[in-house]
């Protein structure tokens, strides 16, 4: 991998190619439940283009970020509700 980006998903380090979206990194980390609905149901990306809000995760402590809209950055700490 040329110029990999190192970040963590739920505390686990992962390296991804530059330009990878956070949603992809979360999926590559093996996480299938990105968040929970109000009633506790599992949620994961649906539209992939920032409309459905299903892929929200916490990024660097900031909650409810749409992971499909945020490119990965070095040192990023991503928390999904896995």
């Amino acid at each position: 991998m040329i110029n990999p980006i190192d970040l963590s998903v739920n505390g686990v380090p992962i390296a991804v190619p530059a330009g990878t979206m956070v949603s992809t990194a979360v999926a590559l980390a093996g996480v299938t439940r990105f968040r929970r609905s109000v009633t506790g149901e599992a949620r994961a990306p649906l539209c992939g283009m920032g409309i459905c809000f299903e892929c929200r995760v916490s990024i660097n402590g900031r909650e409810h970020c749409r992971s499909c809209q945020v490119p990965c950055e070095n040192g990023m700490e991503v928390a999904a509700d896995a």
Partner: protein
Amino acid sequence: MGKSYDVAIAGGGIVGAACAEECAAAGLSVVVVEPGPVGGGATAAGMGHIVVMDDSPAQIALTNYSRTLWMARAHEFPADVEYVSAGTLWVAADAEEMAEVERKRAVYEAIGVRAEVLGPRELAEAEPNLRPSLAGALRVPDDAVVYPPCAARYMLQRALERGAVVRAGESAAQLSGAGIKLRDGSFVPAGIVVNATGAWAPSLTPGIEVRKRKGHLVITDRYPGFVHHQLVELGYLKSAHSMTADSVAFNVQPRKTGQLLIGSSRQFGAEHGEIDANMLTRMLRRAQEYMPALAALTAIRSWTGFRAATPDKLPLIGPCPQDPRLYLATGHEGLGITTSLATAKLVADQLLHRTPAIPVEPYLPGRKQAEHD
């Protein structure tokens, strides 16, 4: 001509719904005419703050009586009414407002409303997301929060169970003491007619002193634990008092879902419901002055509604002087959710000649009040 009802109510907001429930419970036959969804007007644009307000002796009497009615029913509401006894914090920014906190506490103590003064440190502990160096607050622990549209729907459901009828999707075109004339030309005859159409009441009962006062609300995504009480700046009183200028005030509420409901704005003369970007910005800036961390949260929706404002800031509850069979139940301004239950009691008390729990005179239509500016 169709069946005649004892009571025909125009308006299926929380006030109309509460009146329907109370009248049906007293054994009266009731019909409610509502063109839109139940609780879809000002009811859906109210924060659902159940609060004792001390603007005037009559306002204290009405809000305190009504809050007592809410508290007594707290256990019976279904989960979607979201009754939470969150309490209010009246936040004081400086020494002048702390003096107001003390005055307010004495007023509440005199009428048996629990209230305690918090110093700056206690306030910071109670609500860590408020900005540092505020002067303190008055905590009113028995104030509550509800979800108004579901509260209205519940009350109307209770009325239906007791035989009331809802004419949904139909509009009242004309009201008189004899009944409601609908837009389609048909007539719903009744012994008593109640105008509970909020800010739209003057279009059905011309000449009454009710004006639209527009407000904005914003709701955020879910951030459980970010705020614990309904937070209101004491400067809110200045904002609510002003009868002319547009104003905003810091007013943030925790919802049961973990969402935050952010208000408030007040505007006279705005007739259209669209979001006013300038007012919205002012309102959110004000909220951030008190709670800087709000800036990092995600808002998911904003909307507006129209309060029904009267010059003396008291609602109109009771028969019209010119037509004793035509009742008004409107003019509740920003307190319609709180005072809905007491309004329903006072309407039913008057039409059934029962003795009311509080004097009705301050709220009677036709009382002397200064005209709007």
